[in-house]
């Protein structure tokens, strides 16, 4: 049960963040250059992602569970630590916060300056940008869905969480007709980084033969420990950054 809740939450949040980024690209290109080619690009990318899940999901079931947990745990750990590392750097002020409205403006400007499409033909610029944006952001979602789903034998639950997140983000995007700048993206990325890394430690450890005290409940302990370490690192880096600022710069 604990696993299922964390699995759904992690996949939903990670998919939501990636969906916001993909939506920003698609909205910017669609608004400036038209929707037909942009939506074809989105559709083809979604098809490619569905094929990857359909092929890789069942294939992973053929691998012994201990081996799968070791490999998936290692991948999740490396992947989760990337998110967590960046989130700590952003929270402490060492890295700029991701700004969806700035990303939207930049993408829009680039789309407007590209060569115009033939009036009734395919606009390959819109197609390519939308395809690439959805495919690249979607790959991260697919990676999480497949690793979580296959390791727990809960691929449908992981896929449902990802689909729910995409539906929510697209629905909100259609209502506001603009970038979702109010989504606390950096906070969500912090949470996802903590969850991915915690699961990576737990499964990687199980795959390596570790017996966790408290069995499944150890995930909560790992999550609490990582949250504490991360909070301390943010606090320490903030102090370090303030100390290195020129006198008067923080005023």
């Amino acid at each position, binding site marked *: 049960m604990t696993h299922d809740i964390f699995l759904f939450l992690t996949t939903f949040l990670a998919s939501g963040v990636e969906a916001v980024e993909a939506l920003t690209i698609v909205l910017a290109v669609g608004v400036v250059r038209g929707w037909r080619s942009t939506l074809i690009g989105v559709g083809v990318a979604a098809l490619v992602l569905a094929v990857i899940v359909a092929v890789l999901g069942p294939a992973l079931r053929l691998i012994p569970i201990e081996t799968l947990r070791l490999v998936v745990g290692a991948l999740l750990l490396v992947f989760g630590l990337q998110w967590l590392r960046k989130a700590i750097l952003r929270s402490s002020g060492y890295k700029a916060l991701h700004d969806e409205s700035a990303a939207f403006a930049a993408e829009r400007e680039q789309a407007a300056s590209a060569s115009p499409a033939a009036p009734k033909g395919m606009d390959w610029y819109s197609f390519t940008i939308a395809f690439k944006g959805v495919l690249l952001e979607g790959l991260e979602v697919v990676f999480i869905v497949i690793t979580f789903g296959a390791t727990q034998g809960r691929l449908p639950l992981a896929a449902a969480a990802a689909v729910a997140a995409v539906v929510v983000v697209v629905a909100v995007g259609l209502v506001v007709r603009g970038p979702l700048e109010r989504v606390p993206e950096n906070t969500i990325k912090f949470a996802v980084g903590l969850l991915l890394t915690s699961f990576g430690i737990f499964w990687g*450890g199980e795959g390596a*033969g570790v017996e*966790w005290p408290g069995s499944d409940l150890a995930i909560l302990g790992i999550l609490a420990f990582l949250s504490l370490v991360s909070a301390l690192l943010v606090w320490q880096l903030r102090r370090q950054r303030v100390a290195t600022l020129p006198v008067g710069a923080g005023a």
Partner: protein
Amino acid sequence: MSHIRAFGAFWWNFIVGDDWRVAVGVAAGLGLSAFLSHRNIAAWWVLPVTVALVLVVSLRRATRGAG
């Protein structure tokens, strides 16, 4: 050839990211966990401690000289 290189670079960046030391630290932590576990020595503490150390080292490198 450049396509193969670009493909490799994409996956390297996708999985390993900005700091390859993180991946090396994770591999070392998993290796030590397996080593201890197969000798019936409690190893549950290895990965959490490794991850904390990896974060500290990687962040220290990333923020060195930055303001």
